[in-house]
């Protein structure tokens, strides 16, 4: 009676294939754009983007250094997408990740530079800030039935301006450069412990953020699929009414989901800014990290591990723009390609559908063989 679906019919395999198709199509369209901009150098430009830091193949130290930088910058993107997919599994579209990430920046930089806390306290502060932002959206959703997208967008702007005010103060921001102080110069204790920096060409920004990101993804995978809490969240996400019928506490779950999602977003900010690789400048719009995280989450098939792969890929392409010859191309072509891939992410489901259609025919023979073993009552598919 039980049988395994064939390889290509497994949902997991299909998701991976669909994502790969999106990525390839994105790159192809990117190439077309390069062709349009400068036909004679298009191949060269594409090669530069794809080859990326691998062009430093003369010196493995340099190569590993730049590889490390890509990894460091991919970390917040991956974590933001984990935050989004976690809420998404519970049926919540947490567009507020962008704002939760922003207040995470605020908390980690303020506690590290102005208050001089050590790194792990700074992380906790960032998580708390993001979680609080998530809680507010969740509270309004659960108690007053305010759409979490609306609440999230509002909280994004509140978070942005609050962050500008707090980080713009003299204690945190160098008024001459309009950037926050370098953590290394103000409070080295707040920098994350380094991790495998030697392997990555003495890249001082290589920190524990990297393994921690993988651990977070694995924890989410376990929580979603193996725990009673994850069971409840997914049930609520699929069918809220059935969850209510089963006696699950929807109010608590909605709030808790957004608190955890926000916490992860805040954590993402600390995992990036506490490496010291970048300083915050006053911004007039919310950092794109939270929004790009949405695309990464979908490209990764809404799977915690898929998000890691998708995040690395997107970051790799983004970095690739820097290797374009600026005499011929605008380096933003890489951003454009990323944007196209992100756009195509919306088609992941479409490609999955196409695959199902095509495979149905190919599988005719397989089914004919198993027909005798299958119970016959199950033939009526509900419309």
């Amino acid at each position, binding site marked *: 009676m039980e049988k395994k679906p064939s390889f290509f019919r497994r949902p997991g395999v299909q998701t991976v294939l669909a994502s790969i198709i999106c990525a390839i199509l994105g790159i192809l369209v990117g190439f077309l754009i390069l062709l349009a901009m400068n036909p004679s150098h298009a191949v060269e430009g594409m090669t530069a983007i794809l080859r990326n830091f691998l062009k430093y193949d003369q010196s493995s130290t340099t190569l590993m250094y730049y590889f490390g930088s890509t990894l460091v910058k991919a970390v917040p993107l991956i974590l933001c997408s984990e935050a989004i997919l976690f809420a998404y599994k519970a049926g919540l579209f947490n567009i507020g990740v962008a704002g939760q990430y922003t207040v995470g920046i605020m908390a980690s930089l303020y506690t590290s530079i102005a208050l001089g806390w050590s790194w792990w306290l700074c992380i906790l502060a960032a998580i708390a800030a993001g979680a609080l932002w998530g809680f507010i959206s969740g509270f309004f959703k659960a108690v007053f039935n305010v759409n979490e997208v609306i609440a999230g967008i509002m909280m994004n702007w509140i978070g942005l301006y609050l962050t500008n005010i707090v980080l713009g103060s003299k204690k945190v921001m160098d008024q001459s450069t309009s950037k926050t102080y370098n953590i290394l110069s103000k409070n080295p204790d707040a920098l994350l412990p380094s991790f495998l920096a030697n392997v990555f060409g003495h890249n001082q920004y290589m920190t524990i953020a990297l393994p921690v990101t993988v651990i977070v993804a694995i924890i989410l995978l376990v929580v979603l699929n193996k725990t009673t809490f994850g069971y409840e969240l997914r049930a609520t996400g*699929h069918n809220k009414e059935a969850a209510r*019928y089963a006696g699950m506490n929807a109010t608590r779950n909605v709030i808790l989901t957004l608190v955890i999602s926000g916490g992860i977003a805040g954590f993402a900010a600390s995992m990036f800014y506490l490496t010291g690789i970048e300083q915050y400048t006053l911004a007039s719009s919310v950092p794109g990290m939270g929004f790009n995280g949405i695309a990464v989450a979908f490209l990764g098939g809404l799977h915690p591990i898929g998000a890691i792969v998708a995040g690395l890929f997107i970051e790799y392409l983004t970095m690739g723009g820097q290797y374009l010859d600026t005499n011929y191309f605008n380096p933003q072509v890489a951003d454009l390609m990323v944007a196209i891939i992100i756009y195509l992410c919306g088609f992941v489901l479409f490609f999955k559908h196409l695959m199902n259609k095509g495979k149905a025919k190919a599988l005719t023979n397989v089914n004919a063989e198993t027909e005798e073993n299958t119970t016959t009552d*199950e*033939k009526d*598919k509900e419309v």
Partner: protein
Amino acid sequence: MDKDDYVIEMLHIRKEFPGIVANDDITLQLKRGEIHALLGENGAGKSTLMSVLFGLYTPEKGIIKKNGKEVRIKNPNDATALGIGMVHQHFMLVDIFTVLDNIILGAEPNKFGFLTKEAARKRVIQLSEKYNLKVDPDAKIEDITVGMQQRVEILKMLYRDNEVLIFDEPTAVLTPQEIDELMKIMKELAAEGKSILFITHKLNEIKEVADRCSILRKGKYIGTVDVENTTKEELSSLMVGHSVSLKVDKKEAQPADTVLQIKDLCVKSKLHNKDCVHNVSFDVKAGEIVCIAGIDGNGQTELIGGLTGLENISGGQILLDGEDITRKSIRYKNTHGISHVPEDRHKHGLVLDYSLEDNMVLQRYYEPKFSRFGLLKRDTIRSYSDRLTKQFDVRSGEGARTVVRSMSGGNQQKAIIAREMDRDHKLLIAVQPTRGLDVGAIEYIHKAIVNERDQGSAILLVSLELDEVMNLSDRILVMYEGEIVGEVDPKKTTLQELGLYMSGAKKDTGKEA
């Protein structure tokens, strides 16, 4: 009649799904102006065949002819263009649209791109009056009962002047009176020259309206018979392959202690600002089956909602074994002796995208039996699910891991019944437990319910099927406009008397102490 009189011919249709052949070389020929019944058990392939005709599925093999000419129906738009309309078993309505908007959807009357609904509204009202399909054109679909939603579906087809009408188990949700009316409508439509395909597993209805009947069994074509020359018993054995008894065997009830006591329960209506359940009081004792009969939309859904906690109560008291559970949470009620087979299995009963095994523990996943330290015990859940599916004969393509959405309606319902009966309970609430199921499954579920009763459960049954009400219950309470208007003994009453109570023509004024 000669061959040219076939309006629709489906020849040698084959349709497969992963792991299953739903239609295997099926031929169906529909004559102009006839009512052609399509008979078969759940999972026999009726819905699939009709979906093929309606363009929802593309068959692997076989051809479809309209008026003798081969046609290709790739999507419902093609079907509509060919004058084929369908009332689906699970309605295809936009919940947040009004009745009128749903009816005109896809054929919106407009002038320069602006909607002109007035003419459409008149037409809909006229149609609904003509065929006695009472609906409020301005009510939203999500606010009306399942029975009314079906009337909307039928109106939709009538509005479109379709020539070939497919009814996919249309009577499953209707009251006896409504069924009679529907039968009348169907006959009138056929007399007007429309051709009707009528999917059902109710033999009475086939005998009443159908001219011919094609029978499917387990995806295969069994044959086509003239209804007039075929007895019900013959039809039944063609359908299931063996004869089944339609009566429920049960012993005299042995009512013991009172399990459920409801006192003056009121539930607010979602539609308007008044109660749709008024001061309802009754008891259910251990070892008896109490049935709430009534026409769809007279407060039964809300009464059960209030009782189980799915809807808010505006007054009254609910006692379970003497304990006041009026304001307790749904989980508290679930864990303190109430099992509930819900009216809408897709909305409440199942998480359709979950596997069968995950649905089997929907209320129990957190119990120590199925989890430890917050982690699910996958192996225990699997073996528990396997035991239940075996015990209750729930069939699925891939066993415990089957996604419930891909299972047939009958097996989905059996899964819910299995889950609810296996949970510890003093009271079993079953709302329309056999809706849309075939004879075999109905018989099985009825036996299981009687068995539950004999084991000492109190059973509260809500049903629109009078046969079920009469056969199964030990006491009948009739609900009309949110009130209990009468209590009758099924052994002493007649269908006519029940009908009078249900239609509000008769009312017991003096309440029992």
